[in-house]
């Protein structure tokens, strides 16, 4: 569907996702505050932070290279595109044909590569430390995510995200062992990839325990705003992948306006539930030592491979 209507729908979805992504971060933080018996800053706090950062000037290290200045835009662009190709409210959008599950993983990896390179650019101790740890998390989490997506593609006979969602949504509702394994693996991977407890702590003040924050320590002003925004988008992308694979109900299959509009509140509800669950996990878990992260991620990777094997063995 490359018609004008499709393009408009695609653009609307993209703009809506990008604009609303920080709200999901706000919601998770709010839930966390509630669970900790605090009152919380409200849903709009991420927007206030972004506005503040955008209007501040950029303080750049003397030896920052053009790569350091360009990276936030590349990272933001990659994640915006990723958020556009994950099926959220409709499967019949023009960009769905441009990239499948493997390309989506590639896109996330591209963003990670640039984040890590930017972390190394200034040449500070924390920057390189963060880059190394981020790549450590990445090289185990990325194949695990790919294996989770492969399990779904083997079930649906396709790596196209739209087809996966359509096939999975039309199966009768029973628990498939392969999908159950994949679901556990996916949860572990998304915690790690979004720099969440137990792998990383997004709110830490202790530099030595940082992963993601350590890489972006040198960023300020609009660059930092873009990176924070990209992090929100990443959280949204992962949530939407999870919803699309494991709860693919209520997604419109044709690009008509009514279907899309109906799918919107369903998505909001699902995201709200997912965000609450994330906050709950974060409140109940303690952060692991960094040396245990490879073990955690290797478990996720093996679970995902097992999920694929189970599908081949049991055909389900």
């Amino acid at each position: 569907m490359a018609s004008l209507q499709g393009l408009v729908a695609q653009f609307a979805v993209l703009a809506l996702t990008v604009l609303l992504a920080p709200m999901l971060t706000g919601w998770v933080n709010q839930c966390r505050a509630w669970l900790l018996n605090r009152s919380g800053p409200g849903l709009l706090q991420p927007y206030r932070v972004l506005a503040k950062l955008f209007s501040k000037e950029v303080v750049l290290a003397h030896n920052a290279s053009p790569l350091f200045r360009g990276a936030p835009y590349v990272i933001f662009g990659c994640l915006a595109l990723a958020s556009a190709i994950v099926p959220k409210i409709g499967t019949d959008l023009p960009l769905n044909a441009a990239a499948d599950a493997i390309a989506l993983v590639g896109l996330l990896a591209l963003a990670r590569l640039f984040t890590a390179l930017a972390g190394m650019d200034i040449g500070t101790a924390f920057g390189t430390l963060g880059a190394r740890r981020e790549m450590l998390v990445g090289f185990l989490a990325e194949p695990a995510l790919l294996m989770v997506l492969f399990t779904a593609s083997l079930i649906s006979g396709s790596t196209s995200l739209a087809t996966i969602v359509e096939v999975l949504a039309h199966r009768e509702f029973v628990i498939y062992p392969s999908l159950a394994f994949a679901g556990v693996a996916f949860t572990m991977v998304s915690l790690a990839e979004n720099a969440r407890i137990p792998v990383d702590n997004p709110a830490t003040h202790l530099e030595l325990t940082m992963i993601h924050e350590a890489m972006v320590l040198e960023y300020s002003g609009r660059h930092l705003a873009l990176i924070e925004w990209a992090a929100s988008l990443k959280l949204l992308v992962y949530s939407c992948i999870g919803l699309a694979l494991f709860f693919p109900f209520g997604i419109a299959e044709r690009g008509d306006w009514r279907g899309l509009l109906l799918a919107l509140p369903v998505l909001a509800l699902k995201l709200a539930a997912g965000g609450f669950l994330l906050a709950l996990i974060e409140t109940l878990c303690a952060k692991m030592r960094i040396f245990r992260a490879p073990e955690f991620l290797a478990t996720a990777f093996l679970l995902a491979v097992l999920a694929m094997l189970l599908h081949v063995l049991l055909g389900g």
Partner: protein
Amino acid sequence: MGIEESGALSASLAAAAAWIAIGAAGLLRPASLVLASRVLFPAGAAVGCALAAWALQGVFATPQALVLPLGLPDLPFHARIDALSAFFLLLLGAVAAGVSLFASGYLRPGQGTSPGLQCLYYHVFLASMALVLIADDAYFFMVAWETMALASYFLVTSEHRHEEIRRAGYLYLLMAHIGAIAILLCFGALQAGTGDYTFHNMRELQPGAEVATAAFLLALVGFGVKAGIVPLHVWLPEAHPAAPSPVSALMSAVMLKTAVYGMLRVSLDLIAFPLWWWGVVALVLGLVSALGGIVFAAVQTDMKRLLAYSSIENIGLVFAGFGLTLIFRSFGMGTLAALALTATLYHCLNHAFFKSLLFLCTGSVLHATSERSLGKLGGLIHRMPWVAWCALVGSVAIAGLPPLNGFVSEWLLLQAFLLTPGLPQAYLNMLVPVAAAVVALTAALSGYVMVKFYGVVFLGQPRDARLAEAHDAGAWERTGLAWLAAMCIVLGLFPAAVIGLLDPITRALTGHGMASLAQGWLFLAPLQPERASYSALLFFAVTGLLVALTWLAVRAFYHGRVRRAPPWDCGFPLQNARMQDSAEGFGQPVRHVFEPFFRVEQSAPAPADARPSYTEVHDDRLWHWLYLPLARGADRLTGLVTFLQRGRISVYLSYSFATLLVLLLFVG
């Protein structure tokens, strides 16, 4: 497939002859740097371009054969060009053009081999690779193959004053000859006692399963040595760093591919009916090489060794694709075999470009800083922006990230894996998820390795004071780098065109074309578009558009102000270059996670040591488990016959005479 006659065969022969002539011209004034670098190497690059252009036509033309008026009496050289040869010739020509241009600016008066001699070896090396690709009988093939090995040996040992370079060269020569013996025996098995060593005869014969299996295994050893498949890879990380950078680039980008070519030629063309378990052997060896190669690459501290190990990884992926092709082919699943073969060939092409690009970048860095160790580099993006940006393209491509070329071939390979569960063998079906997992892990690790490589060399603070004097590459070098980088981008953005190019080859070798894989020029879709599709151009355009829009929007709504200040680093006042991760530090997580892969030798200082020193060596276990025992055994065995060594020519001549007599006894 085109019908018109093409001059591709005569053009390739002419190109080989021209390269040899250019090499010989270097001997006119061996000491003259100007002649070699300003006249001969650019001429060689022009020949490469011409060869690529003719080979491009040759891919679509009908096969052509020719008997050359060369060789021994009654044993002439046969030459033939078909789509497969033409494709590899195209790869050779296109890469050689870029590398030769770079070499024009790279040659420096050194203390090693003189420029004229280097020019001779280099061009003979190129010509012999071209001849390997068009050889149509075992005799011609072996002559060209050995010329290639010898020419590259002399190139590797250009700086022969260094002890370790001579050692690397010796190891390379030894391994090359072990491989050559296996290839020779493989051809011997294929001709099945007819005494006719032409490939045409071998195609007609079709030996039985046992002979064919023996031939396949011998080919796997012979070509596997040249390709650097684990466990036959030990020469590669020694020889590639020892050679001058353009030579490393050629060896890694093209010479390894001639081995892939040989493997494809023997097991898909000369043997018409492969057995399914051959594919499993190739697949497993490929996966082991891929994972082992990239894990070792992650812990290297020498940038050229790092790239050499990464070559092992990429060749491993190529062999995995090749194994999958054999499996599909043996079960008669033509379309899937064509898909796997397309992925294999595509990855060969991609690796040729991005690996030569990266090797040439290390060459420029080496010239600018005379430093190969990652521990003493850093921050070169400021001093050498041109090289740094080209290297970034190469790094993103080799990490298999969209929208560059490395991603396309990995995408195709993973698609081929995902289609496997239709195989009639239940156990094979279970192997596939594991294999796909290894490929995915390898791809992710290659991202890690490339961040290490690029980040340590080009980003951060210079780790050595001398780096402040580093200079960017010259005009010749830049042209070569730019050409290779541009090809990485083009091959990534227009996969449909490349697949159109591979179509005649898959048609010839598997009986199925892959033209349907490209849905128009924009989309790439194996089998049906609803199964999977990918459009690199759309992908790139949308990402670019989003990046540009963000940039404009930020400036329109807010501002573009920047203030320069010292780095913050959480307020720590003292910062120096040694506080960054070293190459060892960056590799630490991989060492930790993949500990069983390595043989670790540590020496820690005593607590009261006044001058403490700490060393930790990570070595290949195979070297100690396999090669050293073998070498010791060979040493002991040869020790038994030392009494034959008299050191007098007359004695040796009488040995030859006696051998001749004994042989005559048999023949008579």
